[in-house]
């Protein structure tokens, strides 16, 4: 009901969605996915739609373009665009609108471009069909468009096929296609998910720049709150198909008025949050089943301030002032909701001196038909007992290969990899039971980390059998019960198969499996990347709890800097097979020393809009690992490139306060350079705890 908000008059709204109701037919039943959603986007405005998986945001994007699946049923509502209702337009009219007045940018640019047609032609098509240009004119226009999206050497790129371009370039092509006709509405559906952090930042920069030139209204869909806060003026929060809150982006973030928005903001690690200052606050319960008919408020089951009224009386969107609305009967109370017990800072015990993982000059080379790929090119570090060592880097940096040598899934080509005092190799891992018990792994993808055909009991039981000395079945059953309790897994799940569990539960089983043999080191390879945001918090807290209780060391791999900074005691940053920065977690990030670390840190979209941070841009594409740059491997993209010394000489390790980094610029020269870039910001950043918790 938008009556509560009477915002602006209809004629200035570029897009207006009214009471939209959409369901999917599945085996005779209709599952409601979008329930009475209404919002409007003004001309030239960017509106962000935020929500977790399954909340229906992609369905809304598809509904706006009216490209729904064949089994989708629009049960009600209207989508007003340019004076027409998109949902009732004729096919020919719709076709004319698409690509001309409304256009879309997709999540995976690689699969969104036709692999058999040159990219220039794919852009030119839009001109030929919507502007009746001939081949030559269209080609030229395509070239010009590529320039506008900052693609270098557009004349050559025009003739390329999609697979010849990098992810970032592909996305620029898709954006060029979308903006070719200067549309009134641009829909972006998770446009940077799946791209590396630095590439993501570039694409977002581009979108911001293009807004000056093109005055399209934007519908920006994402699960990433930080990105939406950066790009959009207004935003809406979707939960289980209902719009629970909307308003100006900054205000929604700094002062949420719906319990879900508040909870979402509290369970995401902000840059600056550390486990020993304030822990993440997970959201109890889980998303309602798809299409479940819920009486009352959708969020009532998980809401800390839910009352009887909430379960019977569905809340409308209440006007909370300042052009904001929240669908909560008790929205006034929301700012005062205290954080839960879980946010109590962890009692972190400093690490022992005993070294459990020792890696010295480790090299890993893969042979391939194109040439030899040196995935790991001389990495050295150590992990002590009771310590969490975080390993960050973007795709192609070699962290996965390094991880595999540490656990013994593959052999290093040269160098030392010692675990628990013994050299690690595939053969060792196969034969030495003690070594197997000592080091285990938690994998990234919960769907494939557990054998889909085995029951949970099988999975845990087998691990217990192989990794412990427990002789009798009863002993193992007891141990299994203990493990399940430790990871908060209910016993009723023992006899089901993994497909019956949600992502979070599956990951708990994975963790239980790793801890079956009381390991000393657990390698966590992106353990929360494939999980929803609200579930990530719970798993991260679980990992912290287990680590403290069992005095285990972690090697924690992630591409998400905020998560690593939250969790890790010490951090290593990898780039193209090298370790470029290593030290205490805070020392590495605050302030960053190595130029690459700087770029990574600045690329993270922050929720702390006041902390001024200059964007450090990286020029040029990621070099191929088959033919890495000479001298410093980072020199081809380094914003602090000095000259020949970076090309010819390998940089030495520089010692800073708490960390070491590989660069030709020593710390005393680096600091003035950094300060010069942002003269009025202080060096240390705030601890960014988000909305201030009530006392």
């Amino acid at each position, binding site marked *: 009901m938008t009556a509560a908000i009477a915002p602006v008059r209809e004629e200035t709204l570029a897009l207006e969605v009214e009471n939209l109701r959409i369901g999917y037919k599945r085996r005779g039943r209709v*599952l409601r996915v979008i329930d009475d959603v209404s919002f409007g986007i003004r001309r030239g405005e960017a509106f962000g739609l935020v929500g977790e998986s*399954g909340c229906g945001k992609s369905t809304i994007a598809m509904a706006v373009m009216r490209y729904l699946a064949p089994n989708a049923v629009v049960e009600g509502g209207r989508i007003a665009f340019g004076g027409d209702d998109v949902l009732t337009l004729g096919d020919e009219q719709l076709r004319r609108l698409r690509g001309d007045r409304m256009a879309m940018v997709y999540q995976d640019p690689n699969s969104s471009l036709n692999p058999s047609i040159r990219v220039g032609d794919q852009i030119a098509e839009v001109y030929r069909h919507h502007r009746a240009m001939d081949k030559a004119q269209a080609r030229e226009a395509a070239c010009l468009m590529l320039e506008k999206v900052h693609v270098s050497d557009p004349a050559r790129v025009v003739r390329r096929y999609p697979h010849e371009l990098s992810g970032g370039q592909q996305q620029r092509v898709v954006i060029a296609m979308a903006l070719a006709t200067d549309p009134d509405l641009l829909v972006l559906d998770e446009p940077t998910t799946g791209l590396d952090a630095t590439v993501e930042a570039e694409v977002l920069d581009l979108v911001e720049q293009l807004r000056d030139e093109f005055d399209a209204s934007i519908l920006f869909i994402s699960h990433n709150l930080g990105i939406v806060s950066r790009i959009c003026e207004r935003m809406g929060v979707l939960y289980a198909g209902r719009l629970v809150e909307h308003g100006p982006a900054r205000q929604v973030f700094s002062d949420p008025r719906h319990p879900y928005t508040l909870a979402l903001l509290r369970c995401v690690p902000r840059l600056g949050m550390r486990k020993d200052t304030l822990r993440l606050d*997970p959201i*109890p*319960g*889980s*998303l*309602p*089943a*798809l*299409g*479940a008919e819920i009486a009352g408020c959708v969020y009532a*089951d*998980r809401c*800390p301030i839910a009352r009887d009224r909430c379960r019977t009386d569905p809340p409308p969107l209440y006007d909370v002032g300042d052009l904001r609305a929240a669908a909560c009967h008790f929205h006034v109370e929301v700012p005062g909701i205290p954080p*839960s*017990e*879980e946010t109590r800072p962890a009692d972190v015990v400093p690490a022992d001196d005993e070294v459990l993982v020792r890696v010295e000059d480790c090299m890993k080379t893969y042979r391939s038909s194109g040439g030899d790929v040196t995935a790991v090119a001389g990495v050295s570090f150590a992990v002590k007992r009771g310590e969490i060592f975080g390993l960050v880097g973007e795709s192609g940096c070699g962290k996965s290969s390094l991880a595999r040598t540490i*656990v*013994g*899934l593959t052999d290093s080509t040269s160098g030392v990899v010692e675990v628990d005092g013994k050299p690690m190799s595939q053969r060792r*891992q*196969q*034969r030495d*039971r003690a070594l*197997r018990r000592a080091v*285990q*792994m938690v*994998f*990234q*993808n919960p769907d*494939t*980390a*557990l*054998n*889909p*055909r*085995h029951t949970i009991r099988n999975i845990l039981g*087998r*691990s217990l059998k*192989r*990794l412990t000395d427990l002789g009798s079945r009863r002993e193992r059953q007891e141990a299994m019960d203990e493990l399940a309790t430790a990871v*908060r897994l*209910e016993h009723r799940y023992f006899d*089901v*198969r*993994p*497909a*019956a*569990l*949600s*992502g*979070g*539960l599956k990951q708990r089983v994975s963790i239980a*499996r790793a801890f079956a043999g009381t390991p000393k080191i657990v390698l966590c390879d992106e353990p929360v990347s494939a999980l929803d945001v609200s*579930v990530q918090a*719970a798993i991260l807290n679980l990992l912290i709890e287990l680590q403290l209780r069992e005095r285990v060391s972690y090697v924690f791999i992630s591409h998400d800097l905020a998560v690593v900074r939250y969790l890790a005691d010490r951090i290593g940053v990898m780039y193209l097979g090298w370790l470029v920065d290593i030290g205490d977690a805070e020392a590495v990030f605050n302030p960053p020393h190595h130029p690459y670390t700087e770029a990574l840190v600045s690329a993270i979209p922050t929720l702390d809009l006041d902390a001024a941070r200059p964007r450090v841009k990286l020029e040029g594409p990621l070099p191929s690992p088959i033919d890495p740059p000479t001298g410093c491997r980072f020199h081809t993209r380094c914003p602090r490139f000095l000259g020949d010394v970076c090309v010819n000489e390998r940089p030495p390790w520089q010692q800073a306060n708490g960390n070491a980094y590989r660069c030709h610029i020593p710390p005393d020269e680096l600091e003035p350079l950094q300060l010069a870039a942002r003269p009025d910001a202080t060096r240390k950043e705030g601890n960014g705890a988000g909305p201030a918790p009530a006392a």
Partner: protein
Amino acid sequence: MVVDRSDPTSALTVTDAAPGVAGLQGEFARLGRRGRAALFGRALLGSKAFLVGAVIVVWWIFDAIFWRLFVPYEPTAVDPGATLAGPSRSHLFGTDDLGRDVFSRVLAGATSVLTVAPAATALGIAGGITVGLVTGYYRGIVDNVLMRLVDAALAFPLIIIAVLVLSVLGQSTWNVVVVIGIVFTPLVARTVRSAVLAEREHEYVAAAKLRGESGLYIMFAEILPNISGPIAVEATVRLGYAIFTAATLSFLGLGLQPPSPDWGLSVASGLAFLQIAPWMVLFPALALATLVVAVNLVADGLKQVVEE
């Protein structure tokens, strides 16, 4: 899922429970073994093509086992006084050049093809699974060499290979089974191998290695159950081919010998009388047609359900 905030410890039991998981997979996995079988069965029966095929196959199997109980004449009984007679009330499908009742011979002919084909298929599947698992899992030199050999062996069609080998080894039921089985092994191995290649990249295989499981365990206890779907489909498809090939081989004179009522053989021997007594070739041919089509319908129905 209500969290009672008044009890501090209850907040710690955070269960992200299953209901959020939409999709058939989730529902399916939650059913017990009996539930899953029932769902599977119901899905199969829902397909009309599958049903038609299944009925026909069941009929022929029944006939192959029990034809002696209801066949009107002995298939080998000759009757010099009634040769080359057209279909009539006493001889539903007519008689052949030796006066034998075609109807009885058709009924009896099912046995040979339904003995040879399943046996050959079983042989091919067993061999194919073993080779496919080993080459797919271990890769390396073994894989390279074996796959080259497979490509070489498949350099020309099965019939030619079968012709070549059978003419040399001599004709007997057992030889036909062995030849078809061996020829099928590389084909099945290919399918199994590509399924294994996909599975071995999944992390549960790595997890098994980290437990120190042996290669044998991983192949049979971890990977094999996950490729049973494609294998089942492949088995039924192969069965169709086995029937096809066995019948063709006997037609070409490389399978069973007279006076067997085998369908392929009947067609071959009836060819000479095509113009005067077409029923001699017509009915065995039709019988074979129905069986082969039915098996393929069953295979396709199975494929649809497995893929879902």
